[in-house]
């Protein structure tokens, strides 16, 4: 026997009867949308300030549960893990010493140019991250100091750049990731510093279209044009078709935001290209004749 769950035709033709409640609710919704459009940040500030304590407590709870599971792991497993970690620490120590020497040298070179790498970084706990945030954004706690400003770059480990502060409401900031779908970012690829425009594809993925002749290979780092080598990603795949004069380059961020608890906000964004140019000229007047020299040239 067949059942039909459709209403008889007469009922199907029933029209929408609008109640006063419905009209009132829709009117309220329209008012709220208009408030959000004409007073940007007003509703967001209220909502985020209200949600921030809840998100913070969730972070603390998650950390607490994580430590509880850690404590429950077997002793033997911990001993083995400890041995493996000690081995890794030895390797990292050696690498760290090398990096430290390079950083020292780098600092001296920049000091010569009257430049300093970010003097002030603000450590910001991540409150929400994709996929919980639908717009490929991060919600971070910027604190009450008021140092964070819209447009500040957001980095991880001081060298990996992930996005910019799109909004700051009280102690809550919204970071728009460079990988947000459709966002275009000027980048430099590889040691040759090939200029290109990266288009965000979401979830830390980017796409670049470049003439096939340009030498780009898988594994090449992708930088933001700045005096400091801020790494945006690493080339993962190059699609080239003989019938197409352009190749499609796909690159991803080398770090996953899933494991990160903090990001750094560069609060002393002193890397305005004009300012850098002026500083270089001040440090070395002869560079006025260098014509097209830009800070990009010293990006490794």
């Amino acid at each position, binding site marked *: 026997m067949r059942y039909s769950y*459709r*209403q008889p035709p007469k009922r199907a033709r029933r029209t929408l009867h609008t109640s006063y409640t419905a009209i009132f609710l829709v009117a309220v919704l329209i008012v709220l949308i208009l408030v*959000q459009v004409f007073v940007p940040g007003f509703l967001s500030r209220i909502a985020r300030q209200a949600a921030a304590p809840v998100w913070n407590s969730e972070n603390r709870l998650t950390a607490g549960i994580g430590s509880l599971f850690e404590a429950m792991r077997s002793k033997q497993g911990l001993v083995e893990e400890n041995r493996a970690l000690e081995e890794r620490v030895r390797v990292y120590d050696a690498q760290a010493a090398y990096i430290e020497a390079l950083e020292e040298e780098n600092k001296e070179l920049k000091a010569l140019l009257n430049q300093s790498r970010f003097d002030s970084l603000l450590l910001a706990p991540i409150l929400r991250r994709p*996929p*919980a945030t639908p*717009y490929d954004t991060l919600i971070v706690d910027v604190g009450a100091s008021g140092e964070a400003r819209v447009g500040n770059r957001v980095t991880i480990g001081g060298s990996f750049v992930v996005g910019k502060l799109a909004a700051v409401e009280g102690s809550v900031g919204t970071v*728009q990731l460079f990988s947000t*779908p459709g966002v275009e970012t000027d980048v430099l690829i590889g040691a040759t510093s090939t200029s290109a425009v990266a288009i965000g594809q979401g979830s830390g993925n980017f796409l670049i279209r470049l003439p096939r002749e340009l030498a780009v290979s898988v594994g090449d780092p992708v930088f933001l044009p700045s005096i400091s080598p801020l790494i945006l990603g690493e080339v993962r795949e190059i699609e080239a078709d003989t019938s197409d004069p352009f190749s499609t380059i796909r690159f991803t961020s080398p770090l996953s935001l899933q494991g990160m608890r903090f990001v750094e906000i560069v609060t002393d964004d002193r890397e305005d290209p004009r300012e850098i140019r002026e500083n270089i000229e001040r440090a070395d007047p002869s560079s006025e004749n260098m014509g097209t020299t830009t800070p990009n040239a010293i990006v490794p």
Partner: protein
Amino acid sequence: MDPLARHRLILNICVLLSVLFLPWWATIALMGAVLFSSERAFEVLFWGLLMDVLYGTPQPLFFNITFLFTFGAGAMFVLAFFIKRRLIFYS
């Protein structure tokens, strides 16, 4: 309290928690559940707006609008309205 109203209230609390703690697609699924659990679930429009207010940034892919979820919730509401009008469960 009317069992239907209680059911609706519980679902809406779940939507609020999902807005705060769960991935966006879980919120969409719960909003769908709210829409089909009651005759006129206008509250989904507010949940959509809350998503945009909390997480919204201009989206270059969608002409820099910040109300994707509000419009999406509106579209879901209209779609659910026409589907429900044709199903005997809602007669």
